[in-house]
C-alpha cells in the first residue's frame, strides 16, 4: 500500500509504448498519493490503493469520511491537491470509456426532459465520435442493459416517473451499456427497495465473474461480508484495505468508526447519510 517510486516511473514510460506487455500487468485501477482539501482543510489524506481484476470492493466509513470524495477525486470530478489515478497503467483521461461511474441518485435532475432509454444511451456515447449519433446497435446494447436490470418495460418513460429503486436501476443500466472494465458506484444501494437490492447485488456478482473491477461506496456494514471480496475502510485516511475476511475485523471497524460503532449510532449514521448530508460542490 505504500507509494513506490519505481511503479510511478514504470507507468510514465509505459504511456509512450502502446499495448506494451507491461500494461497487461498493470492493475485495473491504482490510486496514488491522493489528497483532497476543501479550503485548506483536508477531507482525504494520502490515499494509496490498487485493486485487482474480478473484484468487488466495498468502500465503507463513517459519515464525512470522504467516501464519495474518494470516488469523485479518483474520477477527476473534483480537484485534488495531490495524487493521480492510473487505469491499466494509463492516465484516466485516456481511459474514460473504460471506467463507468454511477453517481449518487440525488445529484442529477430527474425532472430533466429525457426518457429512460435516453439516459441508458448516454452509456454508449464514449463509443461514438463527436457529432456521431447512436446507431441501432447502440440502442440494442442499451435495451439489453435495461433488460438485465429488469427495466425493459420502462424505456419510454420520463425518468421522474420512476421510483427511487427504478431510477437506481436505470443508472446501473447506463453504466452497463458503457461496457467498461471498471465500475465506480457511489451509494447505489442507498434507499432502494429490497427487490432492487437483490437485482443490484446479483448484477455485481455477474460483473465480477466477467472480470470487471467494481468499487461500491456502501453504507450497510451488515451486507459487506456476504457480498464483497475486498473492503476499504476509510476515515479521512485509509484505515485498512484488503480481503474482507482479514480486513473487516472488529478492531479495524473500531478504528474506522472511532468507538461509535454500536447499533444506535449506526442507525443514526445511516439515516444521516441518506437524508441530510449533501456533499458541497465547491
Amino acid at each position: 500500500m505504500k507509494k513506490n517510486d519505481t511503479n510511478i516511473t514504470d507507468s510514465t514510460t509505459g504511456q509512450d509504448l502502446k499495448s506494451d506487455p507491461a500494461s497487461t500487468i498493470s492493475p485495473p485501477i491504482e490510486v496514488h498519493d491522493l489528497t483532497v482539501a476543501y479550503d485548506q482543510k483536508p477531507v482525504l489524506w494520502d490515499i494509496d490503493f490498487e485493486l485487482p481484476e474480478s473484484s468487488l470492493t466495498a468502500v465503507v466509513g463513517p459519515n464525512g469520511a470522504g467516501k464519495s470524495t474518494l470516488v469523485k477525486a479518483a474520477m477527476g470530478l473534483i480537484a485534488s491537491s495531490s495524487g493521480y489515478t492510473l487505469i491499466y497503467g494509463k492516465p484516466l483521461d485516456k481511459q474514460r470509456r473504460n471506467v463507468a461511474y454511477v453517481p449518487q441518485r440525488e445529484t442529477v435532475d430527474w425532472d430533466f426532459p429525457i426518457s429512460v432509454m435516453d439516459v441508458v444511451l448516454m452509456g454508449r456515447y464514449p463509443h461514438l465520435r463527436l457529432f456521431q449519433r447512436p446507431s441501432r446497435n447502440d440502442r440494442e446494447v442499451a435495451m439489453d442493459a435495461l433488460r438485465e436490470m429488469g427495466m425493459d418495460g420502462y424505456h419510454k418513460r420520463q425518468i421522474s416517473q420512476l421510483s427511487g429503486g427504478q431510477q437506481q436501476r436505470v443508472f446501473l443500466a447506463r453504466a452497463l451499456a458503457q461496457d467498461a472494465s471498471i465500475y465506480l458506484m457511489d451509494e447505489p444501494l442507498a434507499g432502494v427497495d429490497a427487490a432492487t437490492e437483490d437485482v443490484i447485488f446479483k448484477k455485481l456478482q455477474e460483473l465480477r465473474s466477467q472480470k470487471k473491477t467494481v468499487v461500491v461506496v456502501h453504507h450497510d456494514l451488515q451486507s459487506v461480508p456476504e457480498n464483497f471480496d475486498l473492503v476499504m475502510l476509510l476515515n479521512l485516511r485509509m484505515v485498512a484495505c484488503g480481503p474482507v475476511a482479514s480486513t473487516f475485523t472488529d478492531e479495524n471497524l473500531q478504528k474506522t468508526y472511532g468507538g461509535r460503532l454500536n447499533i444506535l449510532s449506526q442507525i443514526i449514521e445511516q439515516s444521516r447519510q441518506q437524508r441530510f448530508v449533501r456533499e458541497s460542490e465547491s
Partner: protein
Amino acid sequence: MITSTGWIIITGILAATSCALVGTFLVLRKMSLMGDAISHAVLPGIVIAFLITASRNTFPMLIGAGIVGLFTVWLTEQLSKKGRIFHDASMGIVFTTLFAIGVILISLYAGNVDIDQECVLYGEIAYVPWDLWIWQGTNMGPRPVWILGLVLIMNITFITLMYKELKTYSFSPQLAATLGMPVGLIHYGLMGSVSFTTIASFESVGAILVVALLIVPPATAYLLTDRLHRLLLLAAFFGITSAVGGYYLALWINSSIAGAIAVFAGIQFALVFLLAPKYGLIGRKIRQQIRYKSPKDAILSQEPTLP
C-alpha cells in the same frame, strides 16, 4: 418584394427562434439568468468595439460582445469558485459592474456616438426595414435579418452537431465529464452562442426583451413535453408565435413592438401554465380530485417516498 411589415415579422421570428433554442439549454441548466447577465454585460464590449472601429458595423460589435460575454461567464465562475461568494451573487456583481461601465462609456462619448441607452435597452424593431445592407450598390435587404439569420444558422448547426454532448451536459455535467466529453468546450460553446444570440437580437428587441425570448418560450414548452428534441421544437414554435402575435398585438394597441412580443410570450406562458394537459395547474388539480376520492385514499395511494 417583402413589405416592411414582412421584414419586421421576419426579424422577430429569427431573433425569437435563435433565443428559444439556446435559451432551452439555459433553462435546463438552471442558468436562466445567465442570459440576463450576458445581455447586460456585453454593453461595454459593444461600446468599445464601436469606439475602436468608429462605425455601427455589427461584426466588430458581435466580436466585442462575444468576448465580453464569455468573460462574464468566466469571471462569474471564478468569483464564486475562488472567493466566498455564491454563484448568483457573483453573477449580480459581474454583470451590473460591466453594464455600468458600458453606460458610463456611452454617456462619456454620447455627444459623438450614434448609440443610446434607449436603443440598447428597448431596441427598435420598427426601424428594421430601413436599416438596409447596401453591398456594391445592391440593396440586399435589412442588415439585422442577415445577422440574425446567420446567428440562427450557427445555433442550429451547433445544436445539431453537439446534440448528444449538450443533452448529456445539461442533464449532468459530472456524467458528461466521466464519459470523457469536452465539458469546457460544450459549456463555453453554449455560452458563446448565448452571447452571439443576445447581441444579434439586441438591436431589434433590446437587452431586456432578449431575456424574455431566451427564457419564456422554453419555459412554456417545458410544461408541455418530456423530451428534449420536442422541447427545442416547441420552444422555437412559441418563440415564433410570440414574434408574430406580438407584432399584431402592437398594431392593435398601438405600442412598442418589442414590448408586445414579450407580453404575448408572457400571455402564452400563463395560458399553458393553466391549461397544459399534464403539468398544467388545472389538469393537475382535476386529476388529483379524480384519483383521490377521500383523504385516506390520497395517503394510501401515495408511493412511498424514499429518503
